């Protein structure tokens, strides 16, 4: 890695600007990880790439971050920039090394179902189970399913050996979603 290279982090989150938390706007933030540790997340050092206006959650977030992605591709190739320290031009490379956010945000960016899906976690393939005799459709993710009356594929998950998602399993799922005959499936 060249000492000029910049490592960036990308995060987005929805926020409700008004007291009645009905409307949300979405902010796109860029962090510079080359700065000293204590200054990564200082307000003055956060770059705001844009605010997706509310009042609703965007249907296709990709079209909003498209411009950012285009610029990041350009930065990966290198952009001619003036360096104040050496008073010369150099090719500035910047790479996003991490993207983060809470569950609704990441599920929006990754086109997942979110925290109420049957497989809500972005990291592992743990299945959610419902309470049988209630009209409640909330799903829970206990590690042990021994006492649940419904037969399960997995009786118990071990914390140290959770079935993690891999890039290939994500891509396989995305393909099966794309080829699903109806929208609900």
């Amino acid at each position, binding site marked *: 890695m060249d000492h000029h290279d910049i490592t960036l982090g990308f995060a987005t989150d929805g926020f409700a600007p008004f007291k009645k938390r009905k409307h949300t706007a979405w902010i796109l933030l860029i962090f510079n990880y080359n700065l000293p540790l204590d200054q990564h997340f200082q307000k*003055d050092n956060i*770059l705001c790439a*844009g605010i*997706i206006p509310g009042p*609703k959650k965007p*249907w*296709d977030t990709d079209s*909003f971050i498209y411009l950012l992605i285009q610029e990041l591709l350009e930065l990966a190739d290198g952009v001619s920039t*003036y360096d*104040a320290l050496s008073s010369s031009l150099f090719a500035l490379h910047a790479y996003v090394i991490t993207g983060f956010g809470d569950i609704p945000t990441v599920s929006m960016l990754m086109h997942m179902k979110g925290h109420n899906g049957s497989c809500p976690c972005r990291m592992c393939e743990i299945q959610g189970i419902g309470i049988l005799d209630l009209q409640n459709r909330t799903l829970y993710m206990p590690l042990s399913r021994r006492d649940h009356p419904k037969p399960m594929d997995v009786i118990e998950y071990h914390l140290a050996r959770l079935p993690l998602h891999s890039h290939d399993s994500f891509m396989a799922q995305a393909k099966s979603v794309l080829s699903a005959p109806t929208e609900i499936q």
Partner: protein
Amino acid sequence: MTHQHFCDSGQSSILDYDLDVLRPFAMKIRNNLTASAFNEMAYNFSKAGMENLARTRSHVWFLSRFEPVVFVCCINLCICYTGKYANLNECPKCKTSCLDKSGQARCTFSYMPLIPHLHVLMSNRTYTTCLQYHANEHTKTSTRMPGMMTDIFDGLHYHLLLGEHVVVGD
């Protein structure tokens, strides 16, 4: 390290006159002053040389040359008309038109370009000195304490990826 710190570090070429315009503007931004409050202040302090909001804004634009890129987006926030949607006039999700009867955009999304932002930051000597942390300081600390997580750069995945080349357009 604040922006004020960057400005006052002695190497900036911002003139006193510019600072007189920038300070009230920074105050407006920090304290969420309304446009009318700002203009009223400008009226009351006109003898002290305070400019109204429109003049202040254009002065700030002249100094920064930083402009957001405005894109048309769907009125229901379904899509932004970029990329594969760039040539559409109607939202594919909710079938609403992107322009109103007079041809104006019904809703816009302002994108703040990253590259000009980085250009300006990299030409600031104080900021670029801070950026050297990753190249110089961090490597020192991690050799001092092997196996210890002090930073995102100590992660195993990051170190594995360091040996690889970035491939654009997979």
